């Protein structure tokens, strides 16, 4: 059953499906993060995105993140689906659902998951603008690397 908790898919994500995987009688709270494609980043208009993944490893890393969450919040159950391929503005790129008996843990664990996804999960996005394209290079989405070469200090 566990294999479906962590998915990389080229199909649209149904939020309901991801949430349902973590709902259970002992958990009263599910914190969900839905990442959508934003039209403007630093004033620049995105037309659409292309996501690429090292799919098998990406699913493994999503599962590792869930294990890390389990170590920190033992009562948490996590499910994550990330979409790849061409995504239009407002399309759902990622859904993270974390259920816990009490809500504070769910929020915290969910934030932990999205931060870790941006650090260790081998998925990349390419922005398509009116005047060109670019692979987005670092994990925190604040910089671009036209040649895909981040500075050492960005990988700390």
């Amino acid at each position, binding site marked *: 059953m566990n294999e479906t908790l962590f998915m990389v898919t080229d199909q649209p994500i149904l939020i309901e499906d991801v949430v349902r995987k973590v709902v259970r009688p002992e958990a009263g709270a599910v914190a969900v993060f839905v990442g959508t494609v934003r039209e403007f980043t630093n004033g620049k208009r995105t037309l659409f995105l292309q996501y690429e993944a090292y799919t098998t490893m990406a699913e493994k890393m999503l599962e590792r993140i869930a294990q890390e969450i389990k170590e920190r919040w033992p009562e948490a159950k996590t499910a994550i689906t990330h979409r790849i391929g061409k995504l239009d503005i407002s399309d759902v790129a990622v859904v993270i659902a974390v259920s816990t008996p009490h809500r504070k843990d769910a929020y915290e664990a969910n934030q932990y998951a999205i931060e870790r996804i941006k650090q260790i999960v081998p998925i990349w996005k390419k922005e398509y603008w009116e005047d060109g394209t670019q692979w987005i*290079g670092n994990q925190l989405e604040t910089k671009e690397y036209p040649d895909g070469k981040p500075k050492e200090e960005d990988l700390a």
Partner: protein
Amino acid sequence: MITLLFFASLKEAVGNGQMSIEYEPITIEQLKRQIEVKYGVNLQNVMVAVNEEYAQENQRLQPGDVIAFIPPVSGG
């Protein structure tokens, strides 16, 4: 044989997402130098996964390894 995988910007720079090379008992660091020279890319800040796990630069290749070159990720 060793399988090499390239993704995103690196895939475009190398011109290929996957290739096979002959096995040599070298480290990841040495392999990176070879790739840099051959394809004119900079792998300084590229992480390497061996068989789908992140690996240290001093790890030595084993026959059959799948080596993935992973530029900074931007999922989420």
